[in-house]
């Protein structure tokens, strides 16, 4: 799980182009959207692409993905439970 969380942080920093932010700067339990990192709807779409590309998880409805994308920890839990890889 720890490794998965670290991988996720690195992948998110890369796909969302969060220059100057390191994995250590991100609290895996902090909210990703609005507060915390302050991500928006486009970032959510990028995260959907990331989930499919890296973990083979298809999320069709961005609205229903809200709970999954609450934090890095919730993403990691979902990946562990659902990843085909």
């Amino acid at each position, binding site marked *: 799980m720890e490794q998965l969380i670290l991988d996720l942080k690195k992948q998110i920093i890369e*796909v969302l*182009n*969060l*220059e100057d*932010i390191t994995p250590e700067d991100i609290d895996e339990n902090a909210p990703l959207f609005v507060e915390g990192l302050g991500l928006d709807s*486009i970032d959510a*779409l*990028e995260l959907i*692409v990331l989930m*499919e590309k890296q973990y083979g998880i298809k999320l069709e409805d961005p609205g229903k993905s809200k709970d999954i994308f609450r934090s890095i920890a919730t993403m990691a839990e979902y990946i562990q439970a659902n990843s085909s890889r």
Partner: protein
Amino acid sequence: MPVYIQSAAQISVQNPLCDDWLIDPIALHLPLQRAIEADYKRFLDPIASRRMGRILKRAIATAVTVVENSGIEQPDAILVGTGLGCIENTEKFLLAMLQDGETLLSPTYFINSTHNTISSHIAIHLACHAYNSTYVHLGISFESALLDAFMQFQLGRIRSALVGAHDEMVPLYFSLLEKAGFWEGKTAAETAVSFMLSDEKKENSMAEIKEVVLLHRPSEERLMQAIEQTASRLGIPKEKWIIPPSVKPIFGESFTNQAFELYAAAVKLQRGLLDDYVLLVNNYKGTETSLLFLSKC
């Protein structure tokens, strides 16, 4: 209604956001010279700029600089001219689509590929709901934006306008244009220039814009006629309008490099380095021509 250039700022192959080029220009190298970046951390926090390519960061930095220097925080119009728009992101989206197929593409590249994302980013950054438009007409994209601003002043709709010229050049697209014979042996460069215009003459006003004319495939005769008609309407005989030497050897070439001609002329007019009446003529590959009539303040 008079229109004055209150402030101008550039990011280019020369040192950014200053006039160092006037005294000590950096030599250009063929075939492609990228811009020298400013320190964008002063203008943008990393979260705000996470999706921005260099062209957008340059646009924000030059826009904020002219806002600060002019003291006009909320311009009444934001107008941008760009030949190719955000070509780096366009290229990335296109390559991903063609090489990896039409699945799992990045939305960021797409939304950053549209030309008007530059002017809308400036608007979002300044929280400015004013008139906003983007011109994409080849080598006269910038002058089209300037003409629109000029007309908004004439119609009494605005008292200030932020007008920008933004083009980036990336190695792959550069090489394609090179294949097509576009550069003709000139130095390809990048353009980021912002101007703050207003109708109020101030101590620091740089120059006055008197008229903007756009012509499509003008004959020599039509061009002369347009210059004569405009000069006479402005009440200054044709002979008094001086065409200064081009600054292309200093700033290089792009779709919007006429903005550098205006910028350099304004800087020189302010310092008394040019005669009072200046005419800038841009002939883009024999198809589109623009005339900018300027005077000292």
